């Protein structure tokens, strides 16, 4: 038989050796994981290591590959949430924020348009009536001048707001292009905030991904339950600074149009009536940190960005002596009276906090508010014990399956079965090595995929061996039979594997969660088994043939 060229042999050997080396860390999972964690922690601290970290880092030599398969939620335990971001919330906030500007514009035209009033309208729509219908065109032009062009790929040439006249009123709402652009920003901001909040508690490898136009997938391994994760993310941690209209102890008090009745956080039974449109909102904060006020009580210091600082400065300048409310999640944290003009955008929130509460509040403020509320479409919690049980069960099944297939192959093909088994083992190792290197996540169906690969990987070997048997029966000498067996089985192997890869790709593209994990291991398993069955087995058989030079062989 024609020998494989040397460079090809070396390449095959190199890939096999790499597979073995790169799969080994998974054997010492806990050890390598601690090493990797320590390494990451040291890198994060700019190379400064605690003794514990140094000890953990020493658990695994640096020059050995240390990439691991990460374990999916179903194996490690943790929580999975699929949230839908209520992007319409942002439309409403944007439109509400527009009202003061519209009012000011039209006030300048009072002699033409008369009195201006905001009329009741659905959320996200601003309806403004003027008392002089003759002034409508002028009012329309004035409001239209507030529009700015949308900067986006699809919305070229469109303005951010649609302004129209309906009866005696001007109706303003966000344009479709602006809505699309806003959705994108809202999602981006939500993702960022969720990521920061999840990172604050230091959990390992959280998955936070955008899905579709308005959904966020959050997977956090090692967290106790989905409820805990939700508490961490907070459905609406929204901080605003609002002007106070009044204070009451009547829970049913009429707040009046465009006002809100909000309970006080630390004074039971006290309610504040505040203006719905905030003076400044939490997303204009640049920093917040726990501090102490002049009486040494825990407090939170904050700093606005320049726009927020200007607004806050203007407001405090013109409202000296009036109270304003600091509102967090629809509760008034405190309602201090403005003592003086506060320029520069620095301030301090005092209230009856404990040190821990003030720290949490600072974290919450620093992480920023979620721009919109989220509803949870899917919640899954998997306990760590169940995950461990699944790992154990998967291990047992994999070992039993492997041993059974190995024995069966030897029973059917004798020495050639042994050679196929070596290839099978190399196949599993390379599969694990590839999964580790690309950072794929191993799930329970993924383990099933690996076990299934063991069964199906030998298929290519079976095709080749059966073909060799046929050629031997036809009276060909051993080396010729082997060569023909490999050559002729190739077309069947290719066709059957391409279709299998095709289904794996489709599963990956369309499927979600467990289906994907399965598709990844199955797909990679098919590719690695093609390599080992065709190249590695051939390499082993060739080497053996060259060494023993058998007169006859039995497959």
């Amino acid at each position, binding site marked *: 038989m024609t020998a494989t060229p040397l460079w090809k042999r070396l390449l095959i050997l190199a890939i096999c050796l790499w597979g073995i080396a790169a799969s080994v860390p998974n054997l010492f999972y806990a050890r390598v994981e601690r090493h990797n964690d320590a390494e990451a922690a040291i890198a994060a601290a700019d190379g400064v290591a605690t003794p514990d970290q140094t000890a953990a880092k020493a658990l695994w030599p640096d020059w050995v590959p240390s990439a691991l398969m990460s374990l999916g939620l179903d194996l490690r335990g943790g929580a999975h949430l699929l949230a839908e971001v209520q992007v319409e919330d942002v439309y409403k906030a944007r439109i509400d924020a527009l009202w003061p500007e519209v009012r000011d514009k039209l006030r300048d035209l009072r002699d033409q348009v008369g009195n201006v009033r905001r009329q009741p309208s659905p959320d996200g729509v601003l309806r403004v009536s003027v008392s002089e219908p003759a002034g409508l065109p002028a009012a329309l032009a004035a409001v239209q001048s507030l529009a700015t062009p949308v900067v986006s790929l699809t919305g070229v040439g469109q303005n951010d707001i649609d302004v129209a006249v309906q009866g005696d009123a001007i109706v303003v709402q966000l344009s479709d292009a602006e809505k699309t652009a806003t959705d994108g920003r809202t999602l981006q901001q939500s993702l960022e905030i969720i990521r920061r909040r999840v990172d604050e508690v230091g959990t390992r490898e959280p998955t936070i991904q955008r899905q579709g136009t308005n959904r966020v997938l959050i997977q956090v391994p090692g967290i106790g*339950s*989905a409820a805990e994760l939700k508490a961490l993310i907070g459905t609406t941690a929204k901080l605003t600074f609002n002007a106070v209209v009044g204070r009451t102890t009547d829970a049913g008090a009429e707040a009046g149009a465009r006002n809100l009745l909000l309970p006080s956080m630390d004074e039971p039974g006290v309610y504040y009536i505040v203006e719905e449109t905030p003076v400044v909102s939490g997303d204009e904060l640049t920093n917040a940190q726990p501090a102490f006020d002049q009486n040494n009580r825990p407090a939170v210091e904050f700093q606005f960005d320049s726009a927020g600082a200007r607004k806050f400065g203007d407001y405090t300048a013109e409202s000296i002596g009036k109270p304003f409310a600091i509102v967090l999640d629809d509760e008034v944290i405190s309602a201090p009276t403005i003592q003086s003009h506060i320029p520069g955008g620095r301030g301090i929130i005092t209230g009856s906090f404990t040190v821990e509460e003030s720290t949490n509040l600072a974290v919450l403020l620093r992480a920023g508010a979620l721009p919109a509320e989220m509803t*949870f*479409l*899917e*919640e899954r919690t998997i*306990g760590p014990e169940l995950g461990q*049980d699944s790992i*154990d*069960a998967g291990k*047992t*099944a*994999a070992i*039993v*399956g*492997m041993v*059974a*297939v190995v024995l*069966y*192959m030897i*029973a*059917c093909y*004798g020495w050639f079965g042994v050679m196929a088994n070596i290839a099978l083992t190399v196949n599993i190792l390379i599969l694990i090595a590839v999964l580790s290197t690309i950072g794929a996540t191993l799930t329970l*169906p993924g383990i*099933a995929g690996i*076990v*299934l690969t*063991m*069964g*199906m990987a*030998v*298929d290519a070997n079976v*095709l080749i061996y*059966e073909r060799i*048997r*046929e050629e031997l*029966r036809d009276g060909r000498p051993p080396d010729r039979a082997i060569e023909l067996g490999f050559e*002729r089985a190739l*077309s*069947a192997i*290719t*066709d*059957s*594997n*391409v*279709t*299998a890869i*095709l*289904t794996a790709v*489709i*599963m990956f593209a*369309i*499927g*979600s*969660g*467990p*289906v994907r994990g*399965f*598709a990844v291991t199955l797909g990679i398993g098919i590719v690695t088994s093609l390599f080992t069955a065709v190249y590695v087995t051939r390499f082993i058989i060739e080497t053996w043939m060259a060494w023993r030079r058998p007169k006859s062989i*039995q497959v």
Partner: protein
Amino acid sequence: MAWRLRLVPEKTNIDFFRLQVVTFGISVLAVVLSLLSVAVLGLNFGVDFQGGTTIRTESTQSVDVGVYREAMGTLDLGDVSITQVFDPAFRDDQHVAMIRIEAQEGAEAATPEVIARVEAALKAVDPAITFPSVESVGPKVSSELIWSALLAIVAGSAGIWIYVWARFEWQFAVGTVAALIHDVVVTVGVFSLFQLKFDLTIVAALLTILGYSVNDTVVIFDRLRENLAKYKTMPLREMMNLTANETLSRTIMTASTTLISLTALLIFGGDVIRGFVFAMLFGVVIGTYSTLYVAKNIVLFLGLDRSDKTKGDKGGTKSTHEFANIDA
């Protein structure tokens, strides 16, 4: 001569078409019955596809379904099903049950309050109880998941159709896809008949069955194509039998190695993926059957154009021709 395990004798001469009326009839009947079963009995959809909540409970005390049911009786949850789970891998004091609660009326999303109430009620009757997994899917997502699952299967079949068509004759593509549909429909039928839980992982299993079954079928077709070029005058039926007999040893061999590893998973893989493994196990058996008795029959029925312009010129069979020359 060293000993070898042989499931299939070296030379077989089985006429796969002798009972073709019976075998094909059985296949058609199975497909029809499966469709009927799905139409009449429906599928026991998991929360992935129907919305709702499943709670897995684990306790050191034995599970008493009646007590659980009573504890949750006052919560007004609608349809609740409680099943005890058994697995050889469980410890003696490990008692597991699955509680399934339907999607709550009017709820778009998952319902955490309901979960909290159920957990509290169960803790009251069994303080040792823990909840190793809780999965809650809102109706909005579940209907989308059904569609994406269907889409995956249709796209999978279409992809295979196109590939087989491109590599072989269109008759082969029809035969292959008919066999695939047969396998998938009958597997779904079995899930419907025995009301086994049908969730996302089962869809993955169905897709794997597609992949396996097509693998099996294509190997025989590949050999058939080779034989078509080799024996130009042999009647198609005879040639198909020859091909199937030549590849029978491989067909059985691959089926058995796959079944061996799947059986290991079925027994030792734990109860969480048992349904998934069962679907694949069943699919491998039926996929092997359909390779031998469905796909070829359809190609034979459709007939093949055997004038010499056949696919010999296309890439895939070139090698066959070359070797045919060497052999001669």
